[in-house]
């Protein structure tokens, strides 16, 4: 039994660029990876939003209403529902004039227990040190 830990670092804003969405959908795929692995083996995904990437976390995205596309907000909520560890850089939020009240902090309506964690970049550095591999989006 072994676990490989992946760190998904999202540093770009979404929609014009597919990276943030693909980061979230690939990290969510960690929940079904067992079909390829031996019993007890796992791949886990931690996600960190940094730089302009924190803009992906804004609430009230209406991508479905305007373009018929699943919003990044919905993907984040799905991630929380699946108990993914989602970190948002505190300094970058503040730099952009944002705070916890502006971003997706939970997915209570889906019954998710996990919440978004707004943390100093130093905590994101620790996460990057703890994972086996880094994937920058």
């Amino acid at each position, binding site marked *: 039994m*072994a676990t*490989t830990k*992946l760190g998904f670092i999202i540093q770009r804003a979404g929609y014009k*660029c*597919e*990276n943030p969405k*693909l980061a979230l*959908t*690939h990290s969510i*795929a*960690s929940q*079904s*990876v067992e*079909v*390829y*692995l031996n019993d007890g*083996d796992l*791949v886990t*995904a931690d996600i960190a939003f940094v730089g302009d990437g924190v803009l992906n976390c804004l609430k009230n995205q209406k991508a479905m209403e305007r373009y018929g596309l699943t919003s990044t907000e919905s993907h984040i909520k799905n991630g929380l529902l699946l108990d993914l560890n989602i970190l948002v850089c505190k300094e970058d939020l503040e730099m952009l004039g944002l705070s916890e009240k502006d971003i997706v902090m939970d997915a209570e309506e889906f019954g998710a227990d996990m919440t978004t964690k707004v943390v100093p970049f130093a905590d994101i550095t620790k996460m990057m040190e703890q994972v*086996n*591999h*880094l*994937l*920058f*989006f």
Partner: protein
Amino acid sequence: MGKLTIGCFSSLVGSMSLDFAVKLAGAAVEKGHKVDFWVSGNATMLSIKGQRAFKDYSALQKPLQELMGKGLTITACEACAEARGYHKDITMEGFKRHSMDWYLASTFDADRVLHIGGE
């Protein structure tokens, strides 16, 4: 020898990131490493067969097929490909198609992962 998993999300034509990734994969294969190669997003364009080699555009079908002959495993994100109209019947021979969990599974026993994001 080790295992290298490369993920690339950039399109075949436009950024040359796939050129980089294929050349790096080739160098790793030549050194005896096992290489898994995952393409997702716009990079699924690489999976289409019948690419015509013009000198103004990246053309990777030939080197890729040579690398597959030397043991490279390459897989495209099926949903990303289908969303772009890249169906199975126009997929290059030897190019696999799976869901995104294939990429994560490949990282499980990889010694190194190089993830090249999209444009």
